């Protein structure tokens, strides 16, 4: 009896510890990595939330195009998109307007303020009620032809562009501003804090080609002097600095060698 009571007590304690520690964050599947749920006004309008797949868009367009020229925020639900905005040709409606094309294929129109049963099929392309197996299949078909990596989508996007597997559009007629040539800043190293951990090589060139300057400065990186901001992996995993993109859309920070790339001397 006493043993049974003791066993029950141990089990209860273990359950308490596990519950207190919280559930381990589930690693997203490759096709779901970078997916963002947008739900500012959808449910109020009687629609399911929008599930936005970053991979579908990043294979065709630079980050800068959407996050600077079109004006999408960098965090989920910060943009506050209304169906009316899309209908007027802003946000998703810049391309999803029923007349724009990509590779000679017409891009489906986004929101309508009124819709019938037939049109509802178009609504649920984005306002997803449940997972679409066709989307998953499309991802794996696309992934097959791409250079691979271990984490995130399992696609090395940087290499994919280098190899010419993807050609990203960086400008939209009537939306993007005509810019001059950018003078790219030099790459620099950041000292690793852990003994034996290779230093970080930060490449401005790699980042500006997709992001321009204003995506990162000053909203994400506010320090104006190298070394003035003290970064920690805790901050990064908390979604600050590099963590704004890396872990969410860009390759995860668990891929240490992608950043800690400078050979250790000696």
């Amino acid at each position: 009896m006493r043993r049974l009571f003791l066993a029950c007590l141990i089990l209860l304690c273990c359950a308490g510890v596990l519950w207190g520690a919280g559930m381990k964050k589930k690693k997203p599947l490759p096709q779901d990595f970078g997916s963002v749920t947008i739900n500012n006004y959808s449910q109020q309008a009687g629609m399911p939330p929008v599930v936005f797949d970053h991979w579908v868009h990043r294979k065709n367009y630079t980050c800068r195009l959407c996050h600077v020229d079109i004006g999408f925020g960098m965090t989920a639900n910060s943009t506050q998109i209304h169906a009316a905005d899309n209908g007027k040709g802003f946000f998703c409606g810049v391309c999803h307007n029923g007349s724009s094309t990509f590779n000679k294929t017409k891009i489906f129109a986004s929101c309508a303020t009124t819709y019938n049963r037939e049109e509802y099929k178009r609504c649920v392309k984005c306002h997803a009620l449940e997972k679409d197996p066709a989307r998953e299949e499309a991802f794996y078909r696309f992934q097959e032809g791409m250079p691979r990596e271990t984490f995130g989508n399992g696609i090395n996007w940087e290499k994919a562009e280098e190899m010419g597997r993807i050609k990203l559009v960086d400008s939209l007629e009537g939306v993007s501003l005509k810019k001059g040539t950018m003078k790219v800043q030099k790459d620099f190293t950041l000292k690793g804090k852990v003994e034996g951990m290779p230093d970080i090589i930060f490449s401005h060139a790699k980042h500006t080609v997709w992001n321009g300057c204003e995506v990162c400065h000053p909203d994400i990186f506010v320090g104006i002097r190298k070394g003035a901001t003290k970064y920690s992996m805790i901050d990064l995993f908390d979604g600050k600095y590099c963590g704004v993109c890396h872990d969410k859309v860009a390759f995860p920070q668990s891929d240490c060698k992608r950043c800690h790339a400078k050979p250790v001397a000696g």
Partner: protein
Amino acid sequence: MTANWKKATAALILALALAQPAAAGESWRAEFEATCSKTDQAMTMSVQELRDLLAKCEALQKVIEVQEDSVRKVYLKRLALCRNLYAYMLEYKQSDAK
């Protein structure tokens, strides 16, 4: 003849008055393009050039704030991105000069 001339003048004035808001609408967009298209050169600009651009951004903000909801939302966001970058570069240049 005089009556016709008056009618024509009135029609011209009316046409100009109707065209003015549209032209004004176009002018702030052109100003926005001229101001925010220089972000890629921000690091090579002088302190004075950055100050001038910031002043233009302030003026543009006032114009954009009275536009309709969707336009206001998009363009204030876009303006903030370029204004903040210019302010950031100005701070950098000024700290460099000290």
